[in-house]
């Protein structure tokens, strides 16, 4: 089986030390994969490197067998879509126009019937057609997140990268967004890679989890194998209990471990 996404020897650093060094990762098709890890572990950096928002120093990113770094930006944007974390913007657009932007990699200069049809299709898919003419800045956080997911879907890629899609949402909208993602992955055979802080939300909706610390993957597998008290101790420096509730593991944090030499406080 071909991996949907392969990341090989990826090295990236800002000014000083490398955030990611010789990073390797392979992800199969049709899955939800969560990337978890403490602040500064390189989750968001990894996602941005895969999408070429940040330019890595070296390495390759293959989607199926095509090397993203060897094609132009527009072609790459037909293979990978990105859902950003926050959406601070100066000039606001209507929801329709925001989603239409996702068609950009497919457009010539003019948007045609087909592109507009695609926009209506994804708006319908997410049940937000009634918001089409509303202004993005006037929406609630949950609605904004859905619009950004709609835009990524309009981009028509097989791979979605999401940066903390639930972090600013109330619990209802967190579940709503994750359910939508699960349905999309199952129904449209997408692959979704999600950088996320909420371990329990990740455990409940992910097919696989990657646990990162300081730019390295320390645990990788189904949620049951990744979310163990030992792993939580090494990666997060916390003492925790892991219970099984329903089909998925559930983390109950107990206390922090004040070990010497831990990189973060």
């Amino acid at each position, binding site marked *: 089986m071909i991996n949907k996404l392969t990341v090989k020897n990826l090295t990236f650093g800002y000014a000083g030390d490398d955030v990611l060094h010789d990073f390797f990762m392979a992800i199969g098709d049709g899955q939800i994969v969560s990337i978890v890890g403490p602040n500064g572990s390189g989750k968001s950096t990894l996602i*941005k490197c895969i*999408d*070429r*928002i940040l330019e890595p120093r070296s390495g390759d990113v293959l989607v199926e067998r095509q090397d993203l770094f060897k094609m*132009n*930006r*527009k*072609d*790459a*944007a*037909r293979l*990978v*879509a*990105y859902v*950003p974390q926050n*959406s*601070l*913007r*100066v*000039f*606001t*657009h*209507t929801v*329709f*126009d*925001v989603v239409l*932007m*996702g068609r*950009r*990699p497919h*457009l010539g*200069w003019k948007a045609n019937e087909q592109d507009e*049809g695609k926009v*209506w*299709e*994804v*708006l*319908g*898919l*997410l*049940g937000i*057609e*009634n918001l*089409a*003419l509303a*202004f993005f*800045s*006037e929406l609630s956080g949950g609605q904004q997140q859905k619009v950004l997911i709609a835009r990524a879907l309009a*981009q028509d890629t097989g791979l979605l990268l999401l940066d903390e899609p639930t972090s600013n949402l109330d619990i209802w909208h967190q579940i*709503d967004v994750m*359910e*939508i993602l*699960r*349905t999309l992955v*199952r*129904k449209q055979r997408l692959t979704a890679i999600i950088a996320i802080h909420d371990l329990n939300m990740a455990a409940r909706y992910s097919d696989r989890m990657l646990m990162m610390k300081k730019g390295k993957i320390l645990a990788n597998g189904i949620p049951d194998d990744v979310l163990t008290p030992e792993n939580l101790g090494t990666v997060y420096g916390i003492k925790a209990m892991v219970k099984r509730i329903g089909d998925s593991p559930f983390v109950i944090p107990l206390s922090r471990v004040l070990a010497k030499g831990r990189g973060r406080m």
Partner: protein
Amino acid sequence: MRQALLRATPGLSWQAPGRTRTGKMTPMRQAHAHSVQGKFFFLGALLLLLIIAASFIITLGQVPMTVRQVYLTLFDRLIPSGLDINPILAHVIWDIRMPLITGTVICGVGLGVCGCVMQAVLKNPMASPFTLGISSGAHFGVSLAVVFGISFLDGPYFLVGNAFVCAALCSGFIIGLSALRGATSETLILAGIAVNYLFQAANQLFTYIADDEQRTVMSYWGMGSLSDLNWNSLWFLGAICLVCLPFLYGKAWDLNLMTTGDDCARSMGVDAHAVRMAVMVVASLLVAAIVAFTGVIGFVGLVAPHIARIIIGNDHRFLIPASGGIGSALLLIANAVSMNILGGVVIPVGIIMSMLGIPLFLYLIIRGKRREFWA
């Protein structure tokens, strides 16, 4: 399995989107189609209004004439038809008023469009050719010529040459400086504001050491005026517009994406830094050319895009032409007032522009049309 998932997520519907089962357009789709039609209608109406306003304004002034006479004269000029044309009238229309009106329209369009694209690539509603120091760079060039007699061009256009070269150098400096830091919108704005203050200080220094006559030239130039435009300068400005404006309009989609943030733009296939650089270079060149001939009329570039945003929204496919149209409408009106309000005395148009434009602008932002297009 699929059924179970659908039941679990009532928000998701897999029905044919956008249309009801009978294939009719949903109300939402109709509303969207109407809003697009509305934008086209507005652009058409704006164009019509510009033509009507220009036709009327050209008849104002010391020599009275009618709109019909103007059109007959122009027609005769283009296709000699042996019509009975008053030669004095023909001279006034063709050599004095036409260059002025045409120049006003060109400068208004250029400044409006440049303000609009600069606001977009800098993601900042306060960006305009004026705030970025291009005008004070041009002013510096003029001062250099007036006070020290240093000029880059000989002949009648030495002031224009100086203004253009210094404005271009100034924006080149800003753009180059920010390129060192990765060309983010913040570095561009900060560099622009800093350079603006630097040139202002230099201008103040020059004013301080200049004699009275030199001071008059400098301060007159700083007020902005369209009355020195002639056909030669218009050919030059027109040629630059013909190159720059289509280029900028061609970036409309990229600008839409860039207003949502560099990260998003890059992830959708737009190289944000490269587009920002290209747009800034082209827009600065156009502004430098306009400012060199007209002096400081900075306000149009700030206010026209915002009026356009309030009316038509932030889709640059519509916003760019609307900004240009509103820019030239504002400048036409301000120019007509400046030429005619005091009988024979022409007040510099930059002053009128600010005195009329600022209350209008404040009214528009405070009247509180519910939506904040720049927030």
